């Protein structure tokens, strides 16, 4: 008893002596660190906006949203963005047509059919796939996939939007698979048991019960993947070329918004020229595209969150 009393008074002593300064300071420090990312984001957006405004002082909205893109024309440069939007949207669409079916099937397999052992082998491999630098994918698209596709489609141009679209899709598969698998894994086992108890096969449980129950997470993974495809730069810059004509023919070269920015930042668009400011306008639009996608993803996962 004597001892207990001693510990108690020691603790009381220590508490009363404790300096509160560290306890007060640390949270402020943590907050500061957390703010860094927010402040940087705000800084970037502000730069984009101010320079984009300078661009629109020189170029009208009507021209910006037109199909005439000839930024290098010395006498009469034009800055219509429609060809870039088409390039971005088409390459992203092709990517999704590869990534969604493959990624979702892989997720269903991993979550519902694979044994624990198989899962433990496949998951890390997928993560490696996700860690390959995109320049490698770009090179792969240009020097391997395009020649391969040329065998099938003789009219395919050396630079085209189809090949980088497919390769972007391959790059995004692990993301779709992994996020969708997380969503399916989160479906309580009780739900599966209920379905098995009614005589469902494993396939029926997967498609009719698990998939609908995980739909919000799965949709969110799709949208995040689209946003990733829209922002992807290296692959399209290398393999889809820089044609600035408005076309919907995926065997032809097209430039994406990101590709345009790469071309102009690595070229010699002098500071202060309209071409220079156009980078900010395109960048801002790209930012808005991906922001909207991410907001949609958040909205979907919140709105369609299954209650169980």
């Amino acid at each position: 008893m004597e001892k207990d009393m001693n510990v108690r008074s020691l603790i009381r002593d220590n508490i009363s002596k404790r300096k509160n300064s560290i306890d007060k300071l640390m949270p402020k420090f943590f907050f500061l660190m957390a703010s860094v990312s927010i402040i940087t984001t705000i800084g970037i957006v502000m730069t984009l906006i101010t320079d984009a405004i300078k661009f629109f002082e020189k170029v009208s909205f009507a021209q910006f949203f037109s199909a005439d893109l000839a930024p290098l024309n010395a006498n009469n440069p034009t800055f219509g963005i429609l060809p870039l939007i088409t390039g971005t949207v088409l390459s992203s669409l092709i990517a999704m047509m590869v990534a969604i079916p493959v990624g979702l099937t892989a997720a269903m397999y991993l979550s519902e059919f694979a044994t624990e052992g198989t899962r433990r082998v496949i998951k890390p491999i997928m993560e490696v796939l996700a860690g390959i630098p995109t320049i490698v994918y770009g090179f792969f698209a240009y020097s391997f996939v395009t020649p391969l596709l040329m065998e099938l489609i003789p009219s395919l141009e050396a630079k085209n939007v189809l090949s980088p679209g497919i390769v972007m899709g391959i790059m995004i598969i692990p993301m779709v698979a992994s996020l969708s698998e997380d969503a399916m894994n989160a479906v309580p086992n009780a739900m599966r048991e209920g379905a098995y108890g009614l005589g469902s096969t494993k396939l029926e449980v997967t498609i009719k019960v698990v998939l609908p129950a995980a739909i919000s997470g799965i949709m969110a993974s799709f949208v995040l993947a689209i946003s990733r495809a829209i922002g992807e730069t290296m692959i399209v810059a290398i393999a889809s070329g820089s044609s600035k004509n408005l076309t919907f023919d995926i065997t032809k070269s097209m430039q994406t918004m990101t590709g345009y920015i790469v071309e102009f930042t690595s070229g010699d668009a002098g500071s202060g020229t309209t071409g220079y400011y156009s980078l900010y306008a395109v960048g801002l639009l790209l930012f808005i595209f991906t922001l909207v996608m991410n907001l949609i993803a958040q909205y979907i996962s919140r709105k369609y969150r299954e209650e169980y």
Partner: protein
Amino acid sequence: MTNYENKVVYDVRDLNLWYGNDQALKNINLKINKNEVTAIIGPSGCGKSTFIKTLNRMIENIPSVRTTGQILYHGLNIFDKSIKVEELRTRVGMVFQKPNPFPKSIYENVLYGPKIHGIKDKNVLQEVLETSLKSAALWDEVKDRLHDNAYGLSGGQQQRLCIARCLAVQPDVILMDEPTSALDPIATAKIEELIDSLKSDYSISIVTHSMQQAGRISDKTAFFLMGDLIEFDQTEVIFSNPRDKRTEDYITGRFG
């Protein structure tokens, strides 16, 4: 699976079950009769859930499980290669400890079974929907909101919905694993009443940790202890005049 007029629905013979190297059921022998309620009691971890999940081979979803012995269902061994497990489970329905409706509408929940088994006729489906919900004593409470999400229902209603979902495939046996343990006393009383009314059409096997519940609703009671079936008899006998000392100790609350 032919002769439904058998008085014996399940004839369990020398059933042993292991999870890996741990034996969870030891040489179980018992018969479950048509139109009777069989209660399975015993302290937690004694193998009640394991046993009941073996009856519709749900236990096989756990990869490490191994069994020996036979379970004859209307004379056919359910472990036989010729038995389709999906078919067995449409004959032998199951209700779980926690209500587990699908995150779909009440309507979709009840008709899930008939639909996956290929019933498409709208009139048939409507008929099944209504009779199942009526048999589960839920129709009056939900008939005006059949297309609402099942998770808007109370716990007790959800459990009756799960019973309706199970009835919709017109099973022969209903297995219930502590179906009222997550419910309040009023909801529990409703389910017990329901079990009593279902008895005339179905054979029911129910796991319960409540001795009072076993006493109120069952015809026969099986007492399990550490994987052994200690005693199996008429419920009155088990409760008033058990043969085994361990049964008596458990019934009188001396352990468990």
